């Protein structure tokens, strides 16, 4: 369908919140696609990393929350290392995750109850702790 864009939709505050929480300048991104190209999890993402930034530009909150992209980011910083405009997507994705959790837009939270017993025994505590922190909010 056709997305209506206007000054109002652009200044919906969503982008401002994300910029304030992440400390990143979302507008300095000029959509070169380097982050999407290098992202190890892009193959499984419904929206590419650069498209998340693009939707921020266009104030399309719902589209951003609907996609699984921000929940597959492992903060491996490949994108930050290679971004020609110095944009750190890991910080932007984490900010959006926090906003999603606060606004009840997050999918089912990942918690201890979702770990099968077999996995729990062999899983490194570091893995569990980081998963809970990243997706528990």
């Amino acid at each position, binding site marked *: 369908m056709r997305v209506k864009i206007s000054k109002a939709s652009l200044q919906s505050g969503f982008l401002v919140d994300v910029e*304030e*929480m*992440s*400390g990143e300048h979302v507008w300095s991104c000029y959509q070169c696609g380097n982050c999407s190209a290098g992202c*190890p*999890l892009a*193959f*499984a993402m419904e929206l590419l990393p650069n498209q998340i930034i693009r939707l921020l530009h266009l104030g399309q909150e719902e589209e951003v929350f609907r996609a699984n992209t921000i*929940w*597959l980011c*492992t*903060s*491996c*910083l*490949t994108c*930050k*290392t*290679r971004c020609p405009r110095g944009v*750190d997507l*890991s*910080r932007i994705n*984490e*900010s959006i995750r*926090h906003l999603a959790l606060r606004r009840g837009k997050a999918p089912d939270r*990942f918690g201890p109850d*979702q*770990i099968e017993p077999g*996995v729990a025994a*062999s*899983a*490194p*505590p*570091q*893995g*569990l*702790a*980081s*998963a809970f*922190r*990243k*997706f528990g909010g």
Partner: protein
Amino acid sequence: MEYLYYPGCTLVDTARNFDRCGRAAARALDVELVEMPDWTCCGTTFPLTNRKIVGLVAPVRTLVNARGEGYEELLTLCSFCYNVLKRANYAVRNRGDERMRINAYLEDEFVRAGQEYDEYEGEVEVVHLLEVLRDTVGFESVTAQVTRPLTNLKVAPYYGCLLLRPQSEIGLDDADEPTVLEDLLGALGCDVIDFPHRVECCGSYLGLSSPDIALQNSYEIVHTASRLGADVLAVVCPLCAYNLDLRQEEMHQRFSGFRQVPVMYFTELLALALEVEEEVYSWERHAVDPLPVLQTVGGI
């Protein structure tokens, strides 16, 4: 030489062999790792949003306690701990507002526990064993002390991501063109493979929260190493070890033509090369048993 050593939760649990080989090998190179008394969690993931100051409490408290032990440096082995502690230190040293807020937070905690507290400004230097071997011990002297060179053991060096990134805050080595692991393995006599996936993400904690997606990442890495003829994949982080080693059985089922490759911590290889005595290795922790290839090729 003595270093205050921070093992971290996993190195006293599923990755105990990573820890024991590290201590023993360091000792063999007369580097004494003195475990930090009553250490607490390092925070595992560095907080990436500005306002979540509580994410800094765990790492900065550890740094404050390390300062309390009177050591200038705090040594780590696991890349998660190294990353969080190093970035927290960087934040305190470089971001005034975060330094002010985290110190206020900890001061309140320490004072309430009856201890005095003076502001932490990043006095402790967070180091990794690889750095110490390279810059302080020196790879030449490591080679000199190697009694059992692992000649013609083909090893693919794997760094993962948090050991090197973000380069501006970590600075252990170049984020895209690291050499420290290659140089160490070379010093041990290994036949080091030029491994293109050495800084690709192994899937990290997605190995637990979205296992079937992360399997693609870990498979990509192990399969490439095996295609390049690697006898062993050397890693620096227990979560990488989990994703790359413990899930090879699933890879075997899901992907045809997949040859399994044993995954070892760099401290295990170091210990073997220095002929550290037996009971530090717990081969049973490996899903893919490295012994066969070590005996035939590595001359162990």
